[in-house]
């Protein structure tokens, strides 16, 4: 069951918001994504054409102190 789950579209072709866990669907090759639930912005890296991964915050919108993230 774990294998089927990990292979499903639930896991591929989207990332989860690293802060709130919201599922964030992506278009192929999309470079950044905004989480509508918590407001975080993420830089996306594509391991291969079907496999996106969050790389880091978008630096220009990152608020380490007192903002929406911290």
């Amino acid at each position, binding site marked *: *069951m*774990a294998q089927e789950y*990990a292979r499903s579209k639930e896991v591929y072709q989207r990332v989860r918001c690293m802060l709130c866990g919201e599922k964030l669907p992506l278009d192929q090759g999309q470079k950044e994504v905004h989480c509508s639930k918590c407001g975080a912005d993420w830089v996306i890296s594509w391991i291969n054409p079907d496999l996106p991964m969050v790389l880091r915050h978008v*630096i220009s919108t990152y608020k380490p102190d007192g903002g929406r993230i911290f």
Partner: protein
Amino acid sequence: MSQIAYIDLTTKKVSTKDIPEQIHRMFLGGRGLAAYLLYNHVEKGINPMSPQNALIVSSGTLSGYFATAYGRTHITGKSPLTGVYGDSNIGGDFSPELKYAGFQHLVIKGKADKPTYLWIHDGQIEIKDASGLWGFDTFETQSRIWEELEDPDVKILCIGQAGERLVRFACVRSWLKRAAGRTGLGCLMGSKQLKAIAVRGTKGLPAKDPGKLLEVSKRQLDYGRKTKIFQIMAKWGLLWPWVVNRERGFVRSRNHQIIGFPEGLGTMEVDVFLDKYQERMFACHGCAMHCQHRWEIKEGHFAGLKGEGPEWFIMAGLGALVGNPYWDVALAAEEACNKYGLDVWTYANNVAWLMELWQRGIIDSNNTYGLNLEWGNRETLAKLPALIARREGLGAIIADGPDEAVKRLRKPEAALYYHRCGKGLDLEAPLTQQRATPLGCLTSNRGNDHLRGICNMEHMNLPPAVLENIFGRPINPDPLAWDTKAWMATWTQYLYAVVDALGLCKFWTKFAAPDLWGFDEPLEVLNAVTGWDMSKDELFEVGERIWNTERLFNAREGIGREGDLPSPISTVPIRGGRLDGVSLEPDKYSKMLDEYYELHGWDWEGRPTPDTLKRLNLDKEPSHIL
């Protein structure tokens, strides 16, 4: 059949024994039989640095066979760093070669009268003079042995200057960065004046059912290559956990004072390493994942420096923990630790601790022999490994661990800021944001350790049905829930014990991803190799037996419940991040610990009961059969 070799460095006597199938099946090889051997060969209460301590080098049961990623070597002994059970696991290619030379385990006792190395080849063991190697670093030592033996295919474990000078957190090394890092086993090797172990084997390793082994291995490899984690690991190596751990609050900066590492954003990043420093990827023996990097620094103060690694904890330890946002100095410090033979984690924890003492004004340049210990100080980070290995200046103060350092600094209050667990090992996995993970790590027999008990699936947002399918019981998917987590930790610990006994890399298991190996996949390979027809329940019980044998060793040393508790400072709620204020509440942790002990069949002190020992056929140990 592989053998156990017993080597006494004092008398220079070598003997061998076959491994009875019954005992092999009860413990498997690697970490399993190593636990049995340590319990049988090391008496209660001995000084870890004495000749009576044993250094046990073990190859996994499946190491060397035609199956993916079974190349891990396990090294075991009473720890010079903590004084309790010590073991560490190292990748590379030593383990299969030891099997090809005819041995699965080496039990090394005594102390040589001069620097020595072991030369093991096709059933022969020679004790050779290493006087000409003493004083060289781990890279040079391996090169010189290859030259001396005129064979670049010789596989080597060795120590650097840190091990020679008995630094308590010295480690055993291979290649440029492979390390049996934790618990100071390089110090144990140095205490025996054993500089290196070199091995070359050309013997065959017949499987009971080669056709089945080939079919199973191919099927599992084909499956594994298609998994998400395989594809990420093959490109990012072991840097990917940085992204996940940083955002989930498992990365701490400035000696665990702050969650996250905001000042490293944009510099201490995975893509910065890949773009600027990585040269290529490579793999351990028989692994298709090739998750290891070779790197080179091309410009700046450290230009020309080359090395292997890094893994995410270089970013976490030599980056965040010490307040350093720059890759070049983290790589330089890593390379120095590799060269001199120091455990990078303990090094990072010690430096972070000293930097917090500096921040708080507890120490100043009068205590540090002039070294500046402001957060992220580049010169200090790069220079200190050499000073520790040579026991010079500040290096001499911390070379024997934090307790001695507190005495030498004459600052008793400094002890309050050192993060470690009840068994004495410095903190590795953060303890506050999860439940099964701190339980699994803190109850580890070598001390708080992610490689013994981290439950990564706790924070993967997996559906309850998937969790139940994996763990065989309902698991609460909330990472902060306390219920059901004792079973999650127990199951995980037994899996890791079996994995280490077989010689398998944990990155091919549920350590890394829910769709990689649990008990079923290694069991298929094991049965094809041995012809045993072992059941999953029996394999699970092997894991339980290994865990209990290690426990017995610690119980005999007087370690009880206090050994499974964290230091008070490590449970303090930390500010910041989405889990602001969450802590490992002592009363709830204690209740979870009770449940965990009950699941294992242990008493309130965490010691195996007579009934448990009888059920696991451990009631006659130490039996001294092997």
